[in-house]
């Protein structure tokens, strides 16, 4: 099996539109959550959302290129270009069958809404532009990036709800480990718009603590009352260790293992066993003991049931003395399809910039989170061995173990 390393990272999120800015936000514990007056006017239970500021799709790609791309696909392209720039790979280095693309994404709602609106308004399909069919597919990120970057290897999207990004990075790493690809540009993307979030709002999953938007997402806190949606795009360049070494690439970190599982239980209520199983598998594949991990980048989204379940799973795997734990969703909100991949990018940013970001808004533990060593203030040292958890509706879980050596 080939060892798999990270040679590039990129991100567009509510914490910033490049890795340097996002790192500064993470270190400062800065929230990217806002109160969206449009959602309030439309009758949302919760108008809170992550908001991406300072990103202009027009500056990234031409009108013709953007025609087939929703905003989050353009953000994925920008993140991928940042990651590729960092990796030192030239455009011609990736235009081959040994370079693939795997992203996590589970909706492209706004394009579907707009095309139906056009059809109803004009009484036929003749007013629906040619870009809609490509914008409305969940695979829109990988199909567009494949065309733009001209990679010729793997090209597909993984849809597994809020663990999509985690599974995408995991499968990308496995393809390299197995020798099926030399490198894979992977990640996750999540649309930020009210159209895609209204049904999520309707099931009462969102926090209604909107007097202070920045304090609404409170993973693991006793008084948490729901998640806050966010999004954007995160991208990584993964390569085989030998491939990276041969071309003299700077190695940011290593993907040591990918564990996965599913609950086989309930659509929206996580089991106590599923995530635990994924974590144990990831540790076993990595050949590591729980004590080898020094930071858990938790999935915890600020929902009462989900956070309790993950806290119990962490306790079962790690016992009474857990590593540092923080959920960055306290700052970003829940980046949904993107989150499993953005956690890996955030972890790599923290390793590069030398800190572990806090779980902001954590004031008081509950009976489960009191057993966790939750990071309340920024820790001024880099993480060395990181576990990134992700879990999604339907009970699909991913766990990635990463190591970083300074």
């Amino acid at each position, binding site marked *: 099996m080939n060892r798999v390393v990270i040679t590039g990272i990129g991100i567009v999120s509510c914490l910033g539109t490049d890795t340097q800015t996002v790192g500064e936000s993470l270190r400062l514990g800065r929230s990217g959550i806002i109160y969206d007056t449009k959602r309030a006017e439309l009758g949302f239970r919760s108008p809170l959302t992550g908001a991406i500021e300072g990103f202009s799709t027009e500056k990234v790609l031409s*009108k*013709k290129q953007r025609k087939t791309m929703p905003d989050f696909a353009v953000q994925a392209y920008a993140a991928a270009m940042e990651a590729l720039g960092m990796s030192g790979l030239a455009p011609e280095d990736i235009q081959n069958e040994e370079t693939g693309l795997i992203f996590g994404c589970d909706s492209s709602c706004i394009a579907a809404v707009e095309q139906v609106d056009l059809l109803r308004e004009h009484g036929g399909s*003749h*007013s629906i*532009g*040619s*870009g809609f069919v490509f914008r409305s597919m969940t695979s829109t990120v990988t199909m567009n990036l494949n065309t733009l970057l001209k990679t010729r290897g793997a090209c597909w999207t993984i849809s597994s709800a809020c663990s999509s990004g985690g599974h995408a990075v995991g499968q990308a790493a496995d393809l390299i480990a197995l020798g099926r690809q030399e490198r894979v540009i992977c990640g996750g993307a999540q649309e930020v718009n009210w159209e895609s979030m209204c049904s999520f709002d309707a099931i009462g999953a969102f926090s209604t603590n909107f007097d202070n938007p920045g304090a609404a997402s409170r993973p693991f806190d006793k008084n948490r009352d729901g998640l806050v949606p966010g999004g954007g795009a995160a991208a990584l360049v993964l390569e085989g260790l030998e491939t990276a070494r041969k071309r003299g690439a700077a190695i940011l970190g290593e993907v040591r293992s990918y564990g996965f599982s599913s609950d086989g239980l309930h659509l929206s209520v996580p089991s106590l066993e599923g995530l635990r199983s994924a974590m144990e598998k990831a540790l076993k594949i990595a050949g590591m003991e729980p004590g080898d991990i020094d930071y858990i980048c938790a999935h915890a989204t600020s929902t009462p049931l989900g956070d309790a379940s993950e806290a119990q799973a962490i306790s079962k795997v790690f016992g009474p003395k857990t590593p540092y734990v923080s959920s960055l969703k306290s700052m970003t909100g829940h980046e949904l399809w993107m989150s499993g991949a953005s956690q890996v990018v955030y972890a790599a940013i923290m390793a590069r910039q030398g800190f572990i970001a806090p779980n902001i808004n954590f004031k008081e533990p509950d009976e489960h989170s009191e057993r966790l060593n939750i990071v309340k203030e920024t820790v001024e040292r880099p993480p060395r061995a990181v576990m990134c958890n992700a879990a999604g509706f339907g009970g699909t879980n991913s766990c990635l173990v990463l190591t970083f050596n300074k």
Partner: protein
Amino acid sequence: MTDQEIIELIDNTLANEFELNIDDMIPGAVLKDDLGLDSLDRVDMVIVLEKAFNFKMSEEETIRAIRTLGDIHNFVIGKKHEMQ
């Protein structure tokens, strides 16, 4: 609307939609080879021209036969004359 005004509206509409240089909008320009417009762009070309001139371009055979910008000029001018 004069024929020249129709031609200018076509050229400006297509230049704006496809981010083309207006200097390249000459009647002999071949849509695919000179202006880079592929089969998907033709779908959008019809939509923006219908909107600009407020008529339906339902003659699919005629539209399919269009090769150059000059063909579009002639087609739209013909349509406008029919409507008058």
